[in-house]
């Protein structure tokens, strides 16, 4: 006995921002080069009044349009760093909006790019310990709300999205070994400093400059690009090898690697270090950008459309925290 991923759905906000849109706004920057290196052509961002919860509701409604009975859901795990409120928990509101049963568990967990793989492992644990049988795992993120209008780099990289995944008890055991990693010493490498309980949101906040023409303030998302790149380059190849050992597999026994879609340059840099062939390494960042905890489920859904027989897929998430997690899933159908 074990658990399987039954279905994944995702939604994007309606408002598309193409590289041409950004080029018009930042005429001095070469977005063609950005597109070639970073691999992003387009991203979607929420409108003023639209939130992560709104996207989450749409993603869940989409998943219940299929043959999933929503009355069988007995747990909601919702990953977000852009909750509607400081309290209550977004997952509780989602339970009501979706008219799910009252005798179910619901919680938010605050993780970024490592969130989806965490969620899969937590869902597997709840099922294995007989605390739940059918889990709704949601990722919903609207980083666009945190990014300064003149922060060209982060506006180019990040997109908003929400995903919904159903994980259920099964005779098959399709969720394999998972591992985790944490280095809170890097907490300030990717951070929104103000607006929590440590520092109030400051309406007179000083505008800072990255030194490359990009602006931000402590009210906004700050990313130390070089440090995040180095963290990823140093930690993730080794971590991927540990995941292979954990699952008793060699690097070439994995049908597809799906890493958090951070940027194509960084992904290929790691791919070469781990010695994964490009045909076994999925990159679909082109039309979505980096949608934080949503990139892996979006990529897994898109990739699974080509699946005709059982495939071993290694998922690896890494980023803000600093936090990383990953594991093996077996998928035998289009999700």
């Amino acid at each position, binding site marked *: 006995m074990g658990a399987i991923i039954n279905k994944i759905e995702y939604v994007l906000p309606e408002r598309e921002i193409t590289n041409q849109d950004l080029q018009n706004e930042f005429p001095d920057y070469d977005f063609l080069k*950005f597109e070639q290196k970073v691999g992003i052509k387009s991203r979607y961002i929420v409108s003023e009044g639209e939130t992560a919860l709104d996207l989450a509701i749409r993603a869940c409604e989409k998943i219940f349009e299929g043959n999933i009975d929503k009355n069988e859901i007995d747990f909601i795990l919702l990953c977000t760093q852009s909750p509607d409120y400081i309290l209550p928990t977004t997952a509780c509101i989602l339970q009501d909006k979706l008219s799910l049963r009252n005798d179910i568990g619901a919680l938010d967990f605050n993780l970024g790019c490592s969130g989806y793989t965490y969620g899969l492992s937590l869902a597997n644990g709840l099922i294995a310990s007989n605390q739940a049988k059918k889990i709704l795992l949601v990722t919903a993120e609207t980083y666009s709300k945190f990014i300064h209008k003149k922060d060209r780099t982060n506006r180019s990289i990040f997109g908003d999205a929400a995903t919904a995944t159903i994980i259920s008890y099964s005779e098959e055991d399709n969720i394999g070994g998972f591992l985790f990693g944490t280095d809170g010493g890097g907490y300030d490498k990717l951070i929104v400093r103000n607006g929590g309980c440590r520092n109030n949101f400051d309406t007179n906040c000083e505008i800072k400059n990255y030194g*490359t023409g990009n602006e931000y303030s402590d009210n906004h998302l700050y990313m*130390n690009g*070089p440090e995040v790149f180095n963290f990823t380059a140093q930690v993730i190849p080794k971590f991927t090898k540990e995941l292979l050992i954990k699952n008793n597999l060699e690097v070439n026994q994995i049908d597809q690697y799906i890493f958090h879609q951070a940027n194509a*340059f960084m992904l290929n840099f790691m791919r070469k270090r781990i010695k994964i062939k490009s045909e076994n390494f999925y990159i679909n960042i082109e039309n979505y950008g980096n949608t934080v905890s949503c990139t892996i489920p979006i990529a897994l859904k898109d990739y699974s459309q080509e699946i005709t027989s059982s495939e071993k897929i290694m998922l690896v998430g890494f980023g803000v925290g600093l936090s990383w997690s990953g594991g093996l899933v077996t998928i035998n159908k289009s999700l």
Partner: protein
Amino acid sequence: MKKQDFIKELSEELELETVVTIASSIKDLDEWDSMGAMILIAYVSDTFDVTLDADDIESITTFNSLIERIGEEKFLE
């Protein structure tokens, strides 16, 4: 690796449109931006097994200062 070859290779990685010398300022290049920093870090890591951190990126000025940071002993001349 010779310093001249290093500058040539790095120029190709950064897709520089101008010819640069050892005394050229990296940050005054039109092509210098956060993506350039990422490309530079990746290239130096792959070629010399040296990790440039954010402070290094901040303090580097000319190609020569970059060579000094990587280590003169790693170059042939």
